[in-house]
């Protein structure tokens, strides 16, 4: 088996705030192999974005406390200096963000902004960088890239801006592309195109992808592995197939049930997980999902470890429930029919 490209081990990210210590990410571990697509799924505040931003060194600050390690190419990205980190950002790890409307600087031309990324890491003159920008815009499917390269961001549509962001993130041929909810702010019709584009370009550029989303449907086709996060923890992890067809965490069932489906009889109301995500300052004792879980019992007072409980290797979860019980009872929640324990 190939050496992993990125090894995140026991990563924790805590922020000191006036209200107390926010445990945004707690004990997250995963590997990313070359060419692999990892989907990180969870609600707002589950720590998925913080995990990604920490890999990029974007959460560094006076109030941030880090634990664990993020190993990339023999270095721990948590330990290196800010100046060293600059060489990794954009160059080794590229990132695209949620809102393409605000992620590009409104006062510079799209081509200038892509060229700037190239020239930050490579010795290229302005004309060379511009030529590369045109080429990149063509690769991400911008029509007339020779003239659009001189447009300002406001002259691009939302989908085109996200394409330009992808071009910028890939401009230095990074080994890893992190996409933080890349489709959330886009029209539904554009979403599929962007996902497909990322799927295609990762092969062209031979990059691994970390795709962050709150929508399991978005990563279903593209991801090799899926990691479900809740309250700063990984609650289920496994190959995409296994997570979809044999989900072990009631939280994952809820996420699956929240996807509108056309291939099933329509429920009266779309399923929603009851309650809100827990506070990251005073998290509940035991399993963090316990207060919202319809199947919680006494044992859930104690937090389960993330370990393999099913037959499939590599499929881990954090749930005390008996595997057979779960297989029998998860149907209603996944179908989006019921929020009550069966």
């Amino acid at each position: 088996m190939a050496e992993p490209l990125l090894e995140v081990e026991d990563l924790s990210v805590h922020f000191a705030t006036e209200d107390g210590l926010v445990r945004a990410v707690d004990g997250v571990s995963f590997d990313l192999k070359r060419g692999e697509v990892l989907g990180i799924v969870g609600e707002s505040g589950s720590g998925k974005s913080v995990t990604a931003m920490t890999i990029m060194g974007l959460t560094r600050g006076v109030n941030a406390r880090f634990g664990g390690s993020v190993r990339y190419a023999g270095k721990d990205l948590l330990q290196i200096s800010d100046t060293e980190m600059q060489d990794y950002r954009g160059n080794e790890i590229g990132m695209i963000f949620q809102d393409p409307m605000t992620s590009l600087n409104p006062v510079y031309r799209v081509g200038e902004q892509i060229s700037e990324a190239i020239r930050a890491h490579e010795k290229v003159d302005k004309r060379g960088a511009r030529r590369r920008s045109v080429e990149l815009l063509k690769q991400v499917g911008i029509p007339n890239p020779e003239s659009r390269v001189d447009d300002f961001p406001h002259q691009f549509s939302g989908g085109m801006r996200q394409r330009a962001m992808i071009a910028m993130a890939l401009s230095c041929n990074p080994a890893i592309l992190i996409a933080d909810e890349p489709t959330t702010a886009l029209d539904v019709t554009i979403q599929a195109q962007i996902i497909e584009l990322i799927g295609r370009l990762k092969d062209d550029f031979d990059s691994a992808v970390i795709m962050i989303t709150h929508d399991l449907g978005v990563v279903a086709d593209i991801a090799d592995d899926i990691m479900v996060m809740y309250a700063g923890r990984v609650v289920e992890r496994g190959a995409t197939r296994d997570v979809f067809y044999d989900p072990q965490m009631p939280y994952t069932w809820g996420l699956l049930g929240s996807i509108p489906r056309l291939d099933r009889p329509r429920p009266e109301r779309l399923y929603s997980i009851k309650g809100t995500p827990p506070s990251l300052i005073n998290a509940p004792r035991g399993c963090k999902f316990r207060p919202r879980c319809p199947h919680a019992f006494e044992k859930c007072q104690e937090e389960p470890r993330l370990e393999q409980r099913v037959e499939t290797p590599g499929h881990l979860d954090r749930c005390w429930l008996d595997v057979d019980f779960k297989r029998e009872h998860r149907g209603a929640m996944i179908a989006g029919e019921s929020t009550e324990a069966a």
Partner: protein
Amino acid sequence: MLTFLVRRMIGAVLVCLAVTFIVFLIFIVVPGGDPAQRIAGKNATAQNIINIRHSWGFDQAFYVQYWNMLKKMFSGDLVSYTSQQNVVDQIIQGMPATFSLTIGAGIIWLFFGICVGVISAVTAGRLSDRLITVLALIGISMPVFWLGIVARYYFAEGGVATIFPDGEYFPISENPAQWFWHLLLPWVVLAVLFIGFYGRVLRGNILDAINEDYVRTAKAKGLAPRRILIRHVLRTSLIPIVTLFGLDFAGVLGGGAILTETVFDLHGVGQYAAQSINNFDLPPIMGVTMYGAFFIVTFSVLVDLFYAYLDPRIRPT
């Protein structure tokens, strides 16, 4: 772009016209009583008042009065009946001093205002930021007439040392070094207030801009912090400063630095306005009002043009 410019300039002319009408209303119509008597000044003879009533047309319909006022203002016939001096001549005489004061002070307050804003934003929350904040607040709160007199006392009249000449304007055409030396104190005194204010505004703008998504993108590209600050943060943070500077600069140029000019006895347009107000001498006040309005309107057009250059989103296509 050309149509934008033409449209904006037509607008500017209309605003100037509107100002003339407001001047007409405020100075002639609204106060009531006899406008001829007010315009004639404190020690006017009865004959004088009759002459004024006739030449301004106060015995005729209001549109005739308005038209006469426009004619007097724009033909350069406006005369102060108190001093018998031509208003336009007096304003032109004051302009070198006012322009010198404005340009020098403007350069100082813009440069140091930006420095103060950037330094306090970059070190936000730390000691230097707090120190600068306190100094800026002191600068904003110090009245110009007080600061000017204190500065004169300490540095021009021997309070500490007699380093600077004590007031008055020295023409640049005669001796540039003397011109500079005479103006240094007024420049600094006038600039102090603006430096504090601009620094505070810019600090806030920068701290807002740092949290913008595109700054995060710039970081994610792997740019150096200095480049992010200058190209991505400062560039957008300075846009509102352009408006402020354009209008403040125009205000001082248009005779707004009444206090500074008077304290340092520079004989500029502002001081002329102050003297005229003291003497209840209406024609010069009307003249200076129009002169000031002209600069404000002109500079707001310039600010708009510069804005379009700075922010492509509002650039007309």
